[in-house]
């Protein structure tokens, strides 16, 4: 019996493999399992190659997993397009469509001998039972239920519920296809037992959603009443969620005429006193940069979600990458600090989004939430979140005495000035992108500019002291270290576990606050570090470079960086740690000594 299984399935859009993944995850979560599902697509709107990776576990899941335990190929051409996204290893059971005509001993996977390879006449079974080859995905679900014990009744319950509105005939057809899959599995047992242990939490209430929906829900919970945006993959679902729900809370949403107008409307809404948000991906972030500068100098709270995809330019619209760190921290001209936060999972994008609003409102600043395609589109099962434990921060409004002689940009001890909004008697002022004095009146004085820059930059000092925006796990005095953020953090969490089980003395830092760089927190973390890796999906190693720009890094800290759409596997990170350790041992002739 297994605690954990990773499925990777690929086919063309017409094979419905992603729908199958959805059904599988839903069924598993209904049975009380933890799970994560990620999707990856070709660039066609319909019918391109598509794949999903579903990880089911009896324990909470940290990431979509490494090598596949089960690979399902409805055709090889599409499966191979996903390369390292669907890694097959010696421990993998490979199931594929017999109609491809490929013999079981000649599957086109180079340099690997899977645990078992089974050709299944999936299309034929679909046709003979449901009457259409389109039911292939249902046959696959039956195979999975039969071989791995996941989803049995729950899958068909879910499918029936989804299709009941259409016709009973359709439900019956699917049932037949599903049953055929189960029967095939039972009559062709696997060499090794790969069934999953029953869930320990059967019947417990679980949430099932993806990063984009969770992000939007968190925003509404945080009090966001305005969303301005423009459709762009892979962030659009955030706007869609708003269009369904924000009205209920007295808010509004605008699908604007372009990216600039989207953020512009949000800037306007914030000026009008409402919590506001926009969401986009790389190309949109580039377009929005001027407005982000405006929000910074006008000191207006605003949350900007950037769901990263491969760049530059159109890049890889449907694949994940971590290459927007520079743009998030540094785009828009002028001397400015714009906080950048990064969630690592569907579960914590809730907290990070709420935190982003709190920081935006408290510091009166635009805040960027750097999500990524993987977090945005992956589905996770989660334990319910107790929203009452979250504090909601609202902007500092002027008091009656502030309004006696109101100065919008008044210098204060903590550099934060009470902010009025239209409709507030006594609070009228001119907000502007041009430099201004405390009252808001425009100026071109160099000394005022220096003072105001100082105010706008130093107000963030306390943010850099926030230890709760960093997760440090493992032995705090370990000589080996990992640093990773965003969706890569989940892989490193698992690598940390594996490495420690293998006796490595290692620790992991996951920064949720990427910018401003919290120098002291890193210095403290680095104190024991002799060797380490900054792991990221950016060819330029943007995170490593930003850290180097702000800090003296330990000599042994290295970059493990690569382009997006080439996922890291926990195993390779552990291997890299072993390598670092052997280097360390060589240099110290077998005994670990603290570095000078």
């Amino acid at each position, binding site marked *: 019996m297994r605690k954990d299984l990773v499925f990777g399935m690929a086919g063309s859009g017409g094979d419905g493999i992603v729908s199958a993944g959805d059904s599988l995850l839903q069924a598993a979560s209904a049975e009380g399992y933890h799970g994560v599902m990620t999707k990856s697509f070709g660039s066609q709107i319909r019918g391109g190659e598509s794949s999903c990776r579903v990880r089911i576990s009896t324990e909470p899941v940290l990431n979509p997993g490494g090598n596949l335990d089960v690979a399902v190929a409805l055709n090889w051409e599409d499966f191979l397009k996903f390369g390292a996204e669907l890694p097959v290893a010696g421990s993998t059971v490979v199931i594929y469509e017999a109609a491809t005509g490929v013999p079981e001993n000649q599957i086109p996977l180079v340099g690997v001998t899977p645990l078992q390879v089974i050709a299944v006449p999936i299309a034929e079974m679909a046709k003979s039972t449901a009457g259409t080859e389109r039911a292939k995905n249902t046959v696959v679900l039956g195979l999975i239920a039969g071989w791995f014990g996941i989803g049995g009744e729950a899958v068909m319950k879910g499918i029936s519920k989804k299709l009941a509105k259409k016709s009973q005939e359709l439900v019956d057809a699917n049932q037949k296809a599903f049953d055929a899959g189960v029967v095939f599995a039972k009559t062709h047992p696997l060499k090794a037992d790969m069934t999953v242990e029953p869930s320990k939490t059967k019947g417990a209430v679980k949430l099932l959603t993806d990063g984009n929906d969770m992000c939007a829900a968190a925003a509404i919970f945080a009090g966001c009443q305005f969303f301005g945006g423009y459709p762009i993959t892979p962030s659009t679902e955030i706007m869609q969620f708003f269009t369904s729900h924000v009205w209920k809370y007295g808010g509004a949403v605008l699908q604007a005429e372009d990216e600039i107008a989207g953020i512009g409307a949000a800037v306007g809404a914030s000026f009008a006193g409402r919590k506001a948000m926009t969401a986009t991906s790389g190309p949109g972030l580039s377009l929005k940069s001027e407005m982000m500068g405006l929000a910074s100098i006008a000191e207006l709270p605003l949350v900007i979600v950037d769901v990263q995809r491969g760049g530059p330019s159109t890049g890889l619209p449907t694949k994940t990458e971590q290459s927007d760190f520079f743009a998030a921290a540094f785009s828009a001209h002028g001397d400015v600090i714009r906080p950048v936060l990064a969630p690592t999972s569907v579960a914590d994008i809730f907290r990070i989004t709420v935190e982003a609003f709190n920081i935006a409102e408290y510091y009166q600043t635009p805040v960027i939430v750097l999500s990524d395609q993987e977090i945005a589109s992956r589905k996770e099962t989660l334990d*319910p979140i107790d929203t009452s434990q979250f504090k909601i921060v609202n902007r500092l409004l002027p008091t009656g005495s502030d309004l006696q002689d109101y100065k919008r940009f008044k210098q204060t001890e903590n550099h934060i000035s009470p902010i009025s909004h239209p409709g507030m008697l006594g*609070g009228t002022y001119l907000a502007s992108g041009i430099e201004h004095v405390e009252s808001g009146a425009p100026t071109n004085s160099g000394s005022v500019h220096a003072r105001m820059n100082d105010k706008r930059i130093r107000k963030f000092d306390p943010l850099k002291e926030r230890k709760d925006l960093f997760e440090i796990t493992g032995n705090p005095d370990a000589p080996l270290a990992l640093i990773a953020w965003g969706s890569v953090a989940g892989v490193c969490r698992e690598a940390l576990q594996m490495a420690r089980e293998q006796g490595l003395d290692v620790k992991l830092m996951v920064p949720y606050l990427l910018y401003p760089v919290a120098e002291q927190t890193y210095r403290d973390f680095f104190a024991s570090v002799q060797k380490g890796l900054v792991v990221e999906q950016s060819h330029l190693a943007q995170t490593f470079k930003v850290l180097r720009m702000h800090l003296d890094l330990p000599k042994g800290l290295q970059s493990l960086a690569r382009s997006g759409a080439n996922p890291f596997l926990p195993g390779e990170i552990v291997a890299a740690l072993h390598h670092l350790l052997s280097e360390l041992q060589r240099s110290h002739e077998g005994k670990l000594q603290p570095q000078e």
Partner: protein
Amino acid sequence: MSANATCEFQAKDYKSDLKPIWCPGCGDYSVVQGIYRALAAIGRPPHEVAFISGIGCSSRIPGYTTAYGFNTVHGRALPIAQGIKLANPDLMVLAAGGDGDGFSIGGGHIAHLIRRNIDITYLVMDNQIYGLTKGQLSPTSQKGRTTCTSPYGSLENPVNPLLYVLAYGAGFVAQASPTDLAGMAAIIEEAIRFPGFAFVNIQSPCVTYGEEAQQIKGLKAISENLSSLGHNPADRLAAMDLAQHYGEKLHLGVFYRNPEPAPTYDALIRERQAALSKDAPPKERILDLFIKK
């Protein structure tokens, strides 16, 4: 149209202490005066007015009023103004800027505010030149015009702001000019009172870079009052016909006023909010949406 003698606010209540940086003789001095007067006639307290602009000489205008002002970035007065109006429909929202701001860098936005019919009044101070950057060609500069970026004469046809907004279906389209301050104040007032997107093109001469023919004297010579021409402002096609003469004639007054104003976007939003908030779960329970049974 008679002014109300017991009006709560006077023009001076809308005038701020900031000293304009405009060149003496600039048409915008009259425009801001017209705005003060229009606002006083309507009588909305300054703190309930949000006045948004982009970048350009004319975009300095919100700072010269006592309203809540926002001097934003080049070309983006309208996107920001619409966010303000949708976030708080109770506010009176004005947007202003120059011809470059509105019809060049920000030219893509007008069409969309018009089709949404957001209740914003947009005042363009059209001077056919980029003044702030010292006299370059603008989207409304006449073909053949020599400027510092067209030393051999412009090869481009100008945008026709009036036809542009009429074509997109704006509910209120008018033109004014400092040649007639009283008329301008009345038109701005009417534009603000119009329920829906209202556009006023204001021929406001640039005294520093403007051509001789586009100064007050020249404008007076080509100006004609639309009401004295017998134009019926309910007739959109007739308005479009007259608007063809932009650049040759200066037609002052209301080109088009939709006799049956369409519902505004901001009003429709309110209806939707009211309808959908009735049975909404508290936002603390929004995650219940994700519970799978």
